[in-house]
Every structure is written in C-alpha cells, then in structure tokens.
C-alpha cells in the first residue's frame, strides 16, 4: 500500500508504487510557496494585490492548530520566527557575489544602507532623483520572477519581496 504523501484532500492513487520514504515529506497543501505564506500574500502570479490573509490559507489543515490561533499568529507577521530569504547580490565587474537576507531588513532604506556598506559605494535606486554621476555611483536592479531586470524601489517592499530573485548593482554608464 502506498503511503499518503500528497495533499490531504486528494484520494490516494492506489496504482502508484509503494513509497516508504524515510526522507521527510512535508504534507503538501494546495501550493508550496513558503515565501508567500510567510508574508500572507495571495498566491496567483497575475494578482499583485497585497492581501494579508487569503481564504485559502484559512482553509489550511496542517499543522493541526485552531483557526483562531492560526489567524492570530499570521496577523503578527511572524515576529518570532527564524524565516530567512537570502538572495544573491552581484556588483558588476566583481565575479564573486554576496548573499543578503532580505527578511532581516524592514524596507528599501535598510536595503540601500546595507548594500552601500557591503560594496563601499553609493547606490542609486528609484527614490533617488537627479543627476546620475559616472564611476562613483551604481544603480541597483533586480531580476524578477519573469526574468526581467527592473530598477529597485518602484513597488511596495512587501510586493518586491515576492518577486525578487536576485540583485545586481550595475555601473551607471552601462545603465
């Protein structure tokens, strides 16, 4: 008999080979987007609305805690968990990249400050107006889920966190 490793509400397919895995198989709910779940954002890729708790999350049946408790914990924004979200950061011209935990930052200003410090340069992003100097400045861009390179800072921070895959600091003249 196969072991049930799938979503709790699907029937077990009796034709599948018996699998007794000793590796952990976390019960898959209807989706597996831990980032989205931690942030309580809606799931569909075409829907970019910020929505603190979707109906589907409230349908969650694992782990077995009461709905009221689940809502209370989601609402607090996970202040006491250890979730991390490391992305790669490359500076143009330097082959060795760095890694940065975006969950440890509380917004764009913290991000820029951290990167300024990490790479010893001045970083320009969407909020910075004015003249783009050469050489001394760099522009911060990110690769989003669709593979496009965008300037950092145009969308709300929480939304940025759901679409960013990695960061690149490019030289101004190339930009």
């Amino acid at each position: 008999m196969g072991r049930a490793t799938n979503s709790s509400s699907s029937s077990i397919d009796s034709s599948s080979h018996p699998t007794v895995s000793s590796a952990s198989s976390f019960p898959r709910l209807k989706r597996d987007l831990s980032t989205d779940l931690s942030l309580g954002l809606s799931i569909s890729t075409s829907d970019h609305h910020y929505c603190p708790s979707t109906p589907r999350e409230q349908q969650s049946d694992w782990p077995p805690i009461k709905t009221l408790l689940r809502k209370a914990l989601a609402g607090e924004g996970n202040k006491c968990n250890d979730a991390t979200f490391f992305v790669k950061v490359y500076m143009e011209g330097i082959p060795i990249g760095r890694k940065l935990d975006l969950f440890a930052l509380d917004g764009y200003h913290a991000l820029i400050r951290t990167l300024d410090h990490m790479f010893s340069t001045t970083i320009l992003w969407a909020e910075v107006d004015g003249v783009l100097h050469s050489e001394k400045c760099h522009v911060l861009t990110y690769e989003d889920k669709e593979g496009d390179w965008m300037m950092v800072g145009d969308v709300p921070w929480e939304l940025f966190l759901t679409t960013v895959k990695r960061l690149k600091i490019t030289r101004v003249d190339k930009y």
Partner: protein
Amino acid sequence: MNYFPDEVLEHVFDFLTSHRDRNAVSLVCKSWFKVEKWSRHRVFVGNCYAISPERLIARFPRVRALTLKGKPHFADFNLVPHDWGGFVYPWIEAMAKSNIGLEELRLKRMVVSNEGLELLARSFVNFKSLVLISCEGFTTDGLAAVAANCRFLRELDLQENEVEDRKGQWLSCFPDSCTSLVSLNFACLKGEVNLTALERLVARCPNLKSLRLNRAVPLDALQRILMLAPQLEDLGTGSYVHDPDTETYNKLISTFQKCRSIRSMSGFLEVSPLCLPAIYPICSNLTSLNLSYAPGIHGDELIKLIHHCRKLQRLWILDCIGDKGLGVVASTCKELQELRVFPSDPFGVGNAAVTEKGLVAISFGCPKLHSLLYFCQQVTNAALITVAKNCPNFTRFRLCILDATKADPVTMQPLDEGFGAIVQSCKDLRRLSLSGLLTDRVFLYIGMYAEQLEMLSIAFAGDSDKGMLYVLNGCKKLRKLEIRDSPFGNEALLTDVGKYETMRSLWMSSCEVTLGGCKVLAEKMPRINVEIINEYDQMEFGFDDRQKVDKMFLYRTLVGPRKDAPHFVWTL
C-alpha cells in the same frame, strides 16, 4: 434494596459527581434508576446526534446543567465543512417547551444562532452560566440578548469562538441590576467594546473572579479595571501596549502589586515587551499562564518572565521560547503538570524553534507533568524513550512534528520505538496523538500497551490495515478514533463492526476506505450513523462502490440518521 426511602438514596447519590458513577448507579435496579433519574441535574452529551433533545428530557426531566458537543474534533482544523451540523437551537427549543429549569449550558463545536441565544435568554429564568467553546453562527446581538435578559447570570465564557462582531453595545446591555457576574470572558471578540460600560459592570460585580478582555481594551482601561476588581483570580489582558515611560504605566505597576489573588493569566494579544515587568510580582503566584496568543513576546522576554513563575502548574506557550527557554521552564517550574507548546510560525516549512531537546529537558525537570501538547521540528526515538522513563504519569500525550512524516533525524528510523516506549511506560494514558514517520509497528505497541487509551489521533501514519486493526482489537477503552491520510481500508473498517457501538465515534479522511465498504458497515450496524461527507464531485455521489471516500464520520446513536444533514452529507 428498598430499605431506604427515596430521599435517602437521593442524598447518597448527591455525593456522586462523575457521570460514569451516576450512569452505573442507574443500572443497579428499577428503584435506583428512578431515584437517580429524578435527581440528576448535570448531564453530559458527548455527541449531540447520539440522542434527541426530547428523549434526553424524558430521561432526565430535572436537568439543570447540560453539556453538548457537536462537530468532530478535526473540525478545529478545517477538515469539516462549516455547515456540517451541530445546531443547538432544537435543544434550546425542546427544553423551553418542556419547562426545563435550565441553569447552565456548555457547548463545544456547535452552531449557535442569535435566535437560539434569544430563546435561551427568555426561557430560563434561573439561567446562570453560558460557556461556548469553538462555536460559531452567532453575533454580538445574541450576546446582547443574554446580557439583557439573564438576571442572575454568573458566567459568560466565550472561548475561541468565531463571532461576528456587530460593534454594538452588547456590554451595555447588562442592566444596572446585574451584580452577580463571577466570570466574563470575551477575549475572542474582535470588535470595540464600550469601555465605560465595562468598567461600571466590573465595579458593580463584587464576586467577579475571572475576567478575560479582548484586544480592544487598552492598557489604561486595564489599569482602571484592576483598581475596581483587586479580587480577581483569573485575568486575560487585552492589548498590553503602552509607552513604559508614562504615568499610566507606573499606575499599572502599583495596581498589579495590589492584585494579590491573581493565579491565572492569559491574553497579551498585542504586547509592548518593555511593559512586561509590571506583571513580575504576580508571576510568583501564578499557577496557570497562557501566552499562546502572544506572538509579540520574543524568546528572551519569555525566558525573563518564566524565571518569576515558580509555582506554575499549567503553561501554554509559543515555540519561540526555544529549547533553551524550555530548559529554563524545566529548572524553574517544578510544579508543572500541563505544558502546551504551539508553533509560532504555522506557515513556515518546518521552522519550529523547538526540538526534542526541549522536551527532554522538561521531562527531567518536571516530574509532575501529565499533560502535553508539543509542536516541534523533530523528535528522536532516544528522546521519547527518555521522556517515557522520566514521566510515567502522562494521561495526555500529543506530539505534532510539523513535517508530518519525518523520521528520527539521527537514526533515520521510524518513531515506532519512541511512541512505543511512551505507551508502555504511561499506564494511565488516556489520550494520544502521533506524528512523524510511523509504521504498523507503533500500532502494535499501542494495541498491546495502551489499555486506558480513550482517544487516539493518527495522521500520515501506518502501512496497512493491520495497523488500524491492532488498535481496534487492543484498546478496549477506546472511545474516539480519528484518522487522516493513512492507508487503512475496508478490511480494517469491517473486521470488527461491533466495536463501533462501544465507541463514541470514528473519523477517517483521505484513507483507503471505499463507498462499498461504508455501505456494508451501515447495513450491518443500524445503530451506527455512517456519514459520507463529500464536498466535491456531487455528480458522482454514490455511483461507484469502488470509489474511495474522502471523509467518513461514523458514530453510535439511538435516534437514527439525523434530519438536519446538509446536501453534501450522505448518511448511508
């Protein structure tokens, strides 16, 4: 046995408080049955569909305190559709019609309507106590009816209910003549309350011992309320947010020093951690502390708090306390009897902050521990064996590994031996929940050793029908069995159908049981309701007996299939 007049028998029976004792007494002879029947005031109905209101009233015409339970336990975790059932209205209506002198009503997992609450409030003149646990279906308008009409109300206790808040003035509906409140718990309400009305209510109820506020009650109001009720024994704070450098906070500090009777605390739904030191003087007297709804208190602050709580017997906490924090609990709380550790990040993929290390530390430090609910990242067999040796007195042991089929991370073995050690050592174990990688072997152990087991919860466990059969054959006192996502099928279900009349209920979801199997069972056992809950695939309902059943709930009953089942519930 007719030597004693009925009054004497009745007086003797008064000393019997447990339902089981009174049930046993009614079986002795007709005369005892009669006396017991007419003197029974407290009745417990574990499944509201096992009996009808009319038959209950006929059996116990003098009932004054009724406990009713509705939905199956897994409804707490969204496994049961909302409109499955468990309506209390027919019970209230029947009792009102029969002029029952109802004084206390305790409901768990039932659907309560405003109409029901209004009828309750109007019909029972001496009504004293309403306790609603995990119920739904009513709004604050229903509460207003209770407040306004129950002149001798002593207790209004709302625990973890889903209540639609009409932002009305339900608290103001307690008349000025209401001075009898002993217990008021509205922590689960989300809306604003009239703070002035609340303070006046507290001021005129000198017997108020238990008060649990909701999020809408700010810290300054808390301070004023405590000044009015220094006799409180159980306090649930609302919002505990303030700037500590203020007059208000200083007043709170001195107010707490006057509250020498507080033994139980909960709440902290929102917290300014810098304000926590105000409660340190109270901590040394606390026997019960529930911080499971306080994710705003971080690990370090929790640990500082725990250092002051030497007398704790019951602790409910979030896992952000960490293994280290549990070590502090183990060395500080020597009187601990009940511990619950909830996951602070239920959406994280296995990010629980506690492991088996915390549990082992607790088992060494807290010899009186007998009740446990523990959500964790991982567990080893060695740890469970140690815990079993240190704490042979467990009556309730519920372990939930967030990654539901995780093996022992050290040996990569299933956790059969660990749980086996628990059931073998804890001879009084009445309730058990399993998780982690488990084979049929663990069920062999449970069947062999868990002689007192009454309730068993299984998820993602076992290999074959043998597992379930070990349990059904071995656990003679089993009353409730709930299983999800495990490979148990028709053979396990049908081997001993008579067993289900000795149990309250069986839940099986996402298992291997088929429609045909359920039909056979229903056919053989007319006094069991076999319900198939099928939210999807309405069209294919009942056409193919080989079809696996998504959710099945069966329970013994004296009154046949229920008439209030919704369209997606099919009683076979």
